[in-house]
Every structure is written in structure tokens, then in C-alpha cells.
């Protein structure tokens, strides 16, 4: 996985430091750490993350099905977030602040309830919110709550929306999400990014790990996410040889069925670390039937609100299977992501199969950061047609012919003004074209031509018969 290039340095806030504040921070001090995450070297990374609200955020219940969104200006609602100060090797003891972030149309208000160490906080928060621009920074009162009004900059708003849309759109439909990867473009990091997103949205996450060990899988997640993951380990001892009783009896099939039978209400995400492993160890029809039951659990519970969806994320290695299993799993999946790429950039070709609607597809270039958040890219720097266009460009049947099918303008005019050999007035044409109501008999319309010789006499009169 290519490491993401470091983002450019944060733009200096246009307004100078608010009057009256004595910034007591040192020059080299880095930005605050968002709760629980690994130490980051760059302020820019922290700033982005804080703006994306990837700290421990709890929704205040006003957003419907938008969960855990970053503080984007296009959404309303209120979040409570926590920012812990201190970072890096010079950590001076974590002091955590409780923030109240409210986003209304076009602006974000940050308020700090309670009395805290305001001056250092202010400086740290300025660096946090440096991705947007501070437009209104009132002087600090001695205590109590105060507010900033921040409008995020345009680029962040656009980028935030696109990042939202890719991960959210993958999880929007519900059901089975199939991630097809290959040796060159691995999909486990995208799987982990989706798991992280679901965990941050407050869903329960169950993981059936078959291919890598639990420690390796959990690596890279921070502790609050790790605490939300329920890991079913099938890697260490799948056949239960050690008989310690730790592994699930019955093997992978029993584990899947246990997941089907769970009774805990609420949205849930089930990640199958590798469907390929399960395909090789279970009979195919049983696996398909179990997957179908898993992804359609909510339907048997009566009404299913969109917040109660079950997401099943399955990782499939394309090269291990023939066209049969791939075709069958594609037809079972509601969303299918095929990973490919060019020139070091990964791309995802996403196919959405909403029930009873035409399937739509979309291609996104992306890269995954070391903390398993997603960053969208524009595309590879050189554009030599990275992968063959699946659709042939529209055919023009009049090309490559040995005869001429085109008309020049004069020829077209001559053709239009040509009188047709049969003389037909428009009324008679209309009368014949519209099936009339009273016309049961047929009529012969004969208009004599200039050359017609109508002789009323019987031509056979002179015959002597």
C-alpha cells in the first residue's frame, strides 16, 4: 500500500490572534491529539482528523441516518467531541476538553462549556480548526462558554462530501457488500476502513477472521475502535485441535449461523475476512444460503427502518475462484467493489444493485491512510487510459462502408422536393392512415394519370363472339 503523501501545511488563519489572548504555546508545539489516536507528526493530519470528527463523537439524535459525520457545513446537528491535549514525546499530561460543536447552515459553532484553561486551549483549538477559516473569534471571557464561528474552506467541504459519499454509499444499501481484490491491489485495508467507519457510527461490528491472526487484524485500529469489535477467531485453531474450548465448536458454519441467530437489536456490521477461505472450506450452496439469511435478517423481523440494516462485508480474492462462484456471489451481492488501479493509485469500481432498479456504477480513485481513513484522489498523474473502457464507444453504422450513405445539403434538398410517383393528396392519406370508425368497406382511389386512356366503351365489342 502506497503511503499517502503528506498534506501541505495548514494555511495560516487569516485573522490574527484574537485581541486579548496571550498565546502561551510554544512555537514548535504540535497540534492537539484527537482522543485516543496514535501520535501524529503533522499538525495537518491532526487538523484534518479533528475536522472530520473522528474522535469519539456521540450523535445528539437529530440527524436521522447520518451518523458520526464530520462537522461539515452542509449538515445540521450537534456533536459533542473530546480533544485531548498533548502529543508526541513531549506530552505533558493529557488534559481533555469537552467540546460542543454545532453546525448550522454555513457555519460551525464551537463552544466550550465550563471553565478550562482557555488560553492554551484557544491556541490549540486554533490549530485544530485551521483547515477552516476562523471568521469570528471574540475575546475570551474569563469563564463560561464562548463560541467561535468557523466556516470550513471550500476545498475541505468538497472533499469531505466526496469522502463521505464513497464510504457511506458503500454502506447505504445494506445487505452484502462484496470486495473483490487481487494480488496487486489488496482489499483488506478497504475492509478495515469500512469496519472503522461502521464502528464510529455506533454499530456493532462482528468480525470472522480466518486468514490473518487477530493481532495483525487489530493492528492499526485505536483502542476505542478495538473495544467495539467482536472478533471471532478462526485462524488460530479452525478445527479445534487444541481443544481448549476457545474456538467455536462446529467451525465456520456454526459461527455464521450463530451470527444469523443473534437477537440483539440495532444495526450491525458483519465482516467476513475472507469469503475465499469460507468458500474453500464450506459447501457452496450452504454458504450462499447462509449469506442470504445473514444479509436479510431484518426483513424477518417485521418492519425494518433504514437504521436497522445489516451490513455484511465480504472480502473475496478474485484469482482463487472461477467464473461460476464469482458470478453467483455477484448476483447475491447488493454492492460490488472491484479493486484495481494504475501507476500506484488504487481505484474502486463500484456497482450498486438496488432492488428492482437499474444497476449503477461508479469509479473512484482512492488511497487509504495508515489509520484506515479514506482519502480520495483525482486519478493517476499520467492519464494513458489506465484500464480498458468496458463499454465500446457508440457505433456509427455509416462509417467504413464502400458506398456512400450520406447526403450533402443540396442532395437533401433535391430529395425533399421530389414529387413522388404516386399522386396522393394528404386528405386521402390521412383517411387511410387513421382507421376510421365507419369504414367497413374498402375504397379504391384512382386518379387517372396524364397518359391514361380511359375508354368507356367495351374493348371487346368488336369481337364477333
Amino acid at each position, binding site marked *: 500500500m502506497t503511503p499517502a503523501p503528506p498534506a501541505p501545511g495548514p494555511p495560516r488563519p487569516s485573522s490574527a490572534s484574537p485581541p486579548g489572548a496571550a498565546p502561551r504555546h510554544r512555537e514548535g508545539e504540535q497540534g492537539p491529539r484527537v482522543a485516543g489516536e496514535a501520535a501524529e507528526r503533522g499538525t495537518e493530519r491532526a487538523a484534518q482528523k479533528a475536522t472530520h470528527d473522528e474522535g469519539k463523537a456521540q450523535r445528539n439524535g437529530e440527524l436521522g441516518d447520518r451518523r458520526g459525520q464530520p462537522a461539515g457545513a452542509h449538515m445540521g446537528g450537534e456533536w459533542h467531541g473530546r480533544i485531548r491535549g498533548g502529543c508526541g514525546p513531549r506530552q505533558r499530561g493529557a488534559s481533555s476538553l469537552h467540546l460542543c460543536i454545532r453546525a448550522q447552515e454555513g457555519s460551525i459553532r464551537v463552544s466550550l462549556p465550563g471553565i478550562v484553561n482557555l488560553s492554551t486551549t484557544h491556541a490549540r483549538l486554533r490549530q485544530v480548526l485551521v483547515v477552516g477559516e476562523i471568521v469570528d473569534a471574540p475575546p475570551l471571557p474569563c469563564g463560561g462558554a464562548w463560541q467561535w464561528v468557523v466556516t470550513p474552506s471550500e476545498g475541505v467541504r468538497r472533499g469531505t462530501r466526496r469522502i463521505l459519499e464513497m464510504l457511506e454509499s458503500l454502506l447505504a444499501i445494506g445487505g452484502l457488500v462484496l470486495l473483490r481484490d487481487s494480488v496487486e491491489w489488496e482489499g483488506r485495508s478497504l475492509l478495515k476502513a469500512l469496519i472503522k467507519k461502521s464502528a464510529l457510527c455506533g454499530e456493532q461490528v462482528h468480525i470472522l477472521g480466518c486468514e490473518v491472526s487477530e493481532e495483525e487484524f487489530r493492528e492499526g485500529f485505536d483502542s476505542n475502535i478495538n473495544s467495539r469489535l467482536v472478533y471471532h477467531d478462526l485462524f488460530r485453531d479452525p478445527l479445534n485441535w487444541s481443544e481448549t474450548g476457545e474456538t467455536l465448536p462446529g467451525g465456520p458454519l456454526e459461527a455464521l*449461523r450463530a451470527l444469523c441467530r443473534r437477537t440483539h437489536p440495532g444495526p450491525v456490521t458483519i465482516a467476513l475476512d475472507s469469503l475465499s477461505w469460507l468458500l474453500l472450506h464450506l*459447501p*457452496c*450452496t*450452504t454458504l*450462499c*444460503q*447462509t449469506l*442470504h*439469511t445473514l444479509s436479510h435478517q431484518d*426483513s424477518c423481523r417485521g418492519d425494518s427502518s433504514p437504521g436497522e440494516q445489516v451490513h455484511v462485508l465480504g472480502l473475496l480474492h478474485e484469482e482463487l475462484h*472461477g*467464473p*461460476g*462462484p464469482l*458470478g*453467483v456471489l455477484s*448476483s447475491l451481492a447488493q454492492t460490488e467493489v472491484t479493486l484495481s488501479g494504475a501507476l500506484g493509485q488504487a481505484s474502486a469500481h463500484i456497482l450498486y*444493485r438496488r432492488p*428492482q*432498479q*437499474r*444497476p449503477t456504477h461508479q469509479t473512484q480513485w482512492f488511497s487509504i491512510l495508515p489509520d484506515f481513513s479514506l482519502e480520495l484522489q483525482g486519478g493517476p498523474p499520467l492519464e494513458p487510459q489506465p484500464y480498458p473502457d*468496458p*463499454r*465500446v*464507444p*457508440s*457505433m*456509427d*453504422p455509416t462509417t467504413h462502408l464502400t458506398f456512400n450513405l450520406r447526403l450533402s445539403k443540396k442532395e437533401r434538398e433535391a430529395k425533399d422536393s421530389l414529387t*413522388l410517383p404516386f399522386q396522393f393528396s394528404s386528405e386521402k*392519406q390521412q383517411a*387511410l*392512415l387513421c*382507421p376510421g370508425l365507419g*369504414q*367497413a*368497406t*374498402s*375504397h379504391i382511389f384512382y386518379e387517372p394519370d396524364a397518359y391514361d386512356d380511359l375508354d368507356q366503351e367495351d374493348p371487346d365489342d368488336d369481337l364477333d363472339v
Partner: protein
Amino acid sequence: MAAAATCGTGTRSTGSMVVSASRNSVTSFQRRGPRASGTDSGCSRLVSIAGTRPSVRNGQLLVSTGLPALDQLLGGGLAVGTVLLIEEDKYNIYSPLLFKYFLAEGIVTGHTLLVASAKEDPADILQELPAPLLDDNCKKECDEDIYNHKTESNIKMKIAWRYQLLPKMEARPVSSSRFGHYYDVSKRIPQELIEASKWHGFFLPEKISSTLNLEPCSLNHSYIKLLQFIQNIIYEEGFDGSNPQKKQKNILRIGIQNLGSPLWGDDICWTENCDSNHSLTKFLYMLRGLLRSSLSACIITVPTHLIQNKAIIARVTNLSDTVVGLESFIGSEKETNPFYKDYHGLIHIRQIPQLNNLIYDVSDVKDLAFKLKRKLFTIEISRT
């Protein structure tokens, strides 16, 4: 009769034939005789059941498939006692529509339904059936459609203007007969119609408990269960004439969805050489035996694009009576082909049965395309 039929479809040049052909494009010769549909006639040979009519070609009892255009292509309708096999399109968008048309027609004409599926609950399938169009409404809709068609074709044809009168397979509803209704796909069937109808559902995950360790046998267990279910219904309700019924005879319409997919426990979509190579073919053989001895008609959708072994597809086609294949343009290179820009896919009539006949009843047009408009599913001759 055969000569009359070819005469009716062949000549289109004279005005009188054109005028009457536009009204009933199958043949311009009407058979005079007792109308079997709906009336209690004294004719003992023909069974007078609602929603059926005898075929003009071979005297078979026909039921409508729900799409009058498809009825025309199949020679008047689907014969009672036969299987209509639909080969699904790649993303399974249009074949459920034909399936639902068939079931909706059964509800409207009062037939008993039997719906079997491994994917969706039959009750949910019935909720999504299209709403029938009443006679005055549907005449208005069809008039609009035909008018739109005519205005655009008026502009196009200057020299071959007589071909504008060729019917485009959009037969107007003949209000006198009750065979073949029109449906509005954008609306759902009213709830009271579903409740007034009699239906039986077979949802596979409920009928089979997956924890049993089943030893493999020649026929798939799901198929065995389904066959037993169908046989029970036919026997109990008297569709095979076993109990003399006091009430009027009725038709059983059977609909089986996604047969052959792994959700039915069949792995012909998985590999080329699999253990249960013959399950589906045996099932179809036994099903056809059940159908031939009872008053029932069956529609089956099979995902043939997923079946890996081409020989199985050929066997399945041979074992069914009527086979219709759907090919949608989504995702294929035909989507951008300018010839096909008006349509959503092609429909292939792959097989039509010879029932008490020596000749096939094949329609003379081969290039048929379908289009799903907002309210209607239309089948037209693709003008390539």
C-alpha cells in the same frame, strides 16, 4: 385453420385487411362458435373456466401470461398443463416483472396461485404485483401510447407509408373478451384483490431446516420438498380431477422463482461438473408430469447466464415447453448501439411446444425487443 392463419398474417397490402388486422393482429378470421370464456355454454368438449379460451390452432385450453403482447407471440397464450421457462437477464430486473404479470393475471381472473421462492417471501412478492388497469382507463392509456407512436412514425415514413399501419404488437384491449388484462407497473395491486384471492406460498428457508445433515441423493432435497408441496396442493384442491368438485373448476397457476440458483441448494451455477448435475432436469421432468395431469400452468425463472455447463441449459430448454429468453442491454456493448437506443433489451422466443400438432406455431418475426416504460412493459419488433 393453418392456411387461414398464414393468410391473415401474410397479407397486409389491401386496405380492408389492414383495417381489420389492426384490431386483431393474430388473424382476421374470427371463429364463430360458442365463446368459452366466462359463459356457461352447453358445449361439452370445451371446459368453461374463467380466464381461459381455446386456441384457434390446436384447440388447447389457453391461459394468458399477463402480457397480451407475449400472448400473441406464443400463439394466443400459454397452454394449460405446460411450463413457461424464462431465462433471466443478467441483473435480474425484467424477469421478475414477467413473473409478476403472470401472478397478477391469476389474481384478476380468480385462479389459485402457488408461489415458490428461495429468495423472497411469497407474501412480499404478492404485495408487489402490478395493479390492473380497468377497461376505460386502459383504453385511454393505450390510445395515448399508440398516438405517440403514430405521430412520430408519421414524420418518419414518406415512401413506405403503408407500413405505418403494421401493428407494433401493441394490441388494443378487446373489451368483449376477458382474456388478457393490462397492468400498471407503477402502482401496486390493491390489497383487497390479494385478500380475495386464494394463494399458497412456499418459502424455502422456512420449509427446510438447515441444521440437518442431509446425505446427498439423486434429487436435491429442496426440489423434493417443492414437488411434494405442489403435489399436495393439486391433490387436495382437486386440480387433477381426483375429487369431484362441486364448485366450478379452476386453474392453478404455479410460479417458481430463481430455480437452479444456489439458494435452492443446487450447484449447477457453481462448477461445470458438479454432483447434482441432474437434479434440475429430474425436477423439471417430474414437474411436467404433474402439470400434464392437472389443470395448471407454471412459470419458472432460471438464471441461465450463471449456469456453467451449457449442456444443462440445453437439457433444461428441451424439458420445458415454452422458453422465452430475456437479454437486457445494461452493461453490454449494445447499450450504446444506436439501433437499440429505444429499447431496454431483446426478447428471444427460443421454443414453442408442439401440442397435439404436427407443426410449430412460430411467429414470423424474430427480432423482438422490449422496453419498460413507466407504466407498461411493451414488446415490439425492433426496427433494425
